[in-house]
């Protein structure tokens, strides 16, 4: 293979390169204009006092970063984001695994289960938010109504700072668990059937097979799902903004929402950019640690 490549690196190669660049150009231009340049410009902005109206626009050095590290709302929003990530990732992985395991048991009407578990994922965040806003309504909501038939006192789903984040997590799990479920199901269906046949010949029961064959075989998929899920959860904004708008009392405000608030309703684009870059550094850390984690696994 390598000889072929070097063989082609002859008079034609620069022309081929040119063609390659020409074909990539439409993508590259957009990539540079709408991704790379905004990131560079955002980094620059984070060192200025830039505002939407143009007042106090000067270079401020690390003042924005200094302010952010001493800003209790920034830390609280970051804390909320991490809290959400932890309490949403665990059910989103475990429930997906259980659902995939159940569907994979050759139930009748498998397609119906598959469809039902996955279809909420196709809804827009606005639709999901409206569903849950109604269901969580303290007076008229479906959930409290159902609880009351069992004699359970109404739960202030969205009004209690200790409950609100869990309500968001429940909505999020219902909405997005289908994607992880699909990844797990596909991985399960790729496990060679012979493994199970051999195991049953050796007298292994269903649970034994699950823990000794299915789970280990799902290892790489689990790593993938956890990483994707952590990254998705860290970015949470839509459903929180639409269900509680960060309330009550800022108890569900995510860091992305805080960036939005400081930049667009608070006008302070420079400061908002600084917070974004602190968050960017955090996400970068997660992504890089994932690469190292994967490298160690395969080594």
């Amino acid at each position, binding site marked *: 293979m390598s000889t072929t490549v070097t063989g082609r690196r002859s008079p034609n190669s620069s022309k081929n390169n040119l063609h390659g660049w020409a074909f990539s150009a439409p993508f590259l231009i957009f990539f540079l204009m709408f991704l790379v340049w905004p990131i560079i410009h955002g980094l620059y902005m984070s060192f200025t*006092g830039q*505002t*939407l*109206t*143009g*007042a*106090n626009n000067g270079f401020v050095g690390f003042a924005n970063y200094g*302010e952010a590290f001493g800003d209790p709302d920034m830390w609280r929003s970051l804390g909320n984001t991490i809290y959400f990530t932890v309490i949403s990732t665990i059910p989103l992985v475990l429930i997906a695994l259980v659902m995939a395991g159940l569907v994979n048991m050759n139930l009748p009407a498998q397609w119906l289960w598959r469809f039902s578990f996955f279809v909420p994922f196709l809804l827009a965040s606005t639709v999901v938010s409206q569903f849950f806003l109604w269901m969580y309504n*303290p*007076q008229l909501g479906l959930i409290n109504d159902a609880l009351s038939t069992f004699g359970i006192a109404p739960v*202030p789903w*969205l*009004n209690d700072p200790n409950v609100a984040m869990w309500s968001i997590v429940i909505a999020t799990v219902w909405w997005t668990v289908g994607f992880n479920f699909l990844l797990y199901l596909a991985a399960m269906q790729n496990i060679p059937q012979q493994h199970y046949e051999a195991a049953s010949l050796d007298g292994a029961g269903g649970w034994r097979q699950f823990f000794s064959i299915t789970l280990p075989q799902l290892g790489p998929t689990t790593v993938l799902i956890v990483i994707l899920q952590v990254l998705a959860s860290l970015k949470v904004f839509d459903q929180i903004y639409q269900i*509680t*708008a*960060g*309330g*009550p*009392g*800022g108890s569900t405000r995510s860091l992305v929402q805080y960036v939005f*608030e400081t930049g*667009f*309703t*608070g*006008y*302070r684009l420079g400061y908002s950019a600084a917070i974004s870059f602190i968050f960017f550094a955090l996400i970068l850390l997660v992504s890089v640690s994932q690469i190292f984690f994967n490298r160690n696994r395969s080594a």
Partner: protein
Amino acid sequence: MPNEIARILPPSGWRSPNRRQFLTGAALLGGAAATGTLAGCGGPAAAGEETLRFWHLLSGGDGVKMQAMIDRVNAESPDFDVVPTVLAWGTPYYTKLAMASAGGRPPELAIMHASRIPGYAPGGLLDAWDLDELAKRDVSKETFADRVWASGELDGDIFSIALDSHPFIAMYNTDVAGEAGLLGSDGLLTEITDPERFLEAMREMQAVTGGHGLSYGYINDGAQMWRLFYTLYRQHGAEMALNSGQPADVDRDVAIDCLTYITSLLDDTICASGADINNAIAEFATGGSGMLFSGVWELPTMQDAGIAFDAMTIPTLFGTPAAYADSHAFVLPHQNDVDEARRAAAYDFVANILKGSLSWAEAGHIPAYQPVVNSEEYRSLEPQVHYANAAEIINYDPRAWFTGSGSDFQTFFAANVQNVFLGREAPDVGWDAFVDRLNTILSKPNPV
């Protein structure tokens, strides 16, 4: 088709397209050859009538009323055609308007809450109104109530012309009030000037309805909490000043007194302790309570509900008549390149809408334009006329770049005070936390 194309074209006929317009045009008509066609049929369409882009945030019943007013003025005005864009109230609207203005190519005209002017005008996001041009169209200081006119003023310039004022008021069920013996011989609620007496009166109403005496919803709604709080705060005659670089100048004792009084209303007998605005409206509309604290804009809802009710400003319980209010006000978003013909059309449109704002009063709002308020028709419009006195006693938010309707300020208030309203936290703790939050934002550089 010509209309579609007129919208793609830059405001005053054909100029060379910028990137976005070019991409839109190319995408629609399939390439560079299409630009010639655009020039060909876009030009004449724009020549006859000026298109006036107008953004507003009025939805629901208000939106229908506004659209009818726009349609009427459009039909009467051969020179211009107002094309409204309606955006969702609150943050979505104000962020878009600010960004459009910062970019220098915003709509020719927009509606804002007058309380938001201090967050827009000093940063150059708004152009000032030309008082001579307004006077030519019979619009001047003399045609507005003093407080309403002053709400648009900043550093000597007028940045907004109010369409209305919409105070926070009390609506009361006349059947319930009558049965509780609270109506005077004129059929109106007897004057209550004592806070303890008001609690008693609400209990008397509760005895009649068997539900609650008062409906007031506030859960997750900073605006609702702030409206009642600030009404009572100003009734004490207390001031509130928020100046960048200085700590918030507030009367802590009065504030705590107000919060304590509000919690005494929210005792699950007089008023539900944890209702949201929709619960409160539904309760009052179905006769489940005797009184509702809400904005005037709920008036049509109650008229549709078919209950017997009247309306008044919130009773003066602490000495000074005061009502929280805001105004929908016309502003000229800052344009880098002002088209004089369009700007003149904007003046014409605003003057015409103001003069026809009687129909706006049907939506509950108090028209700002005094000739309308003093007209026979308005004077006979009940119950609107029973709270028209509010225009003399209204109080807009304390002025700062971050205050006003739908602002972060109200979010801060909700974040720190909701637990006080719910009885989970002491009034002084919630209030001090709110003031801390204000002091933090006041200590930061003012972005406008």
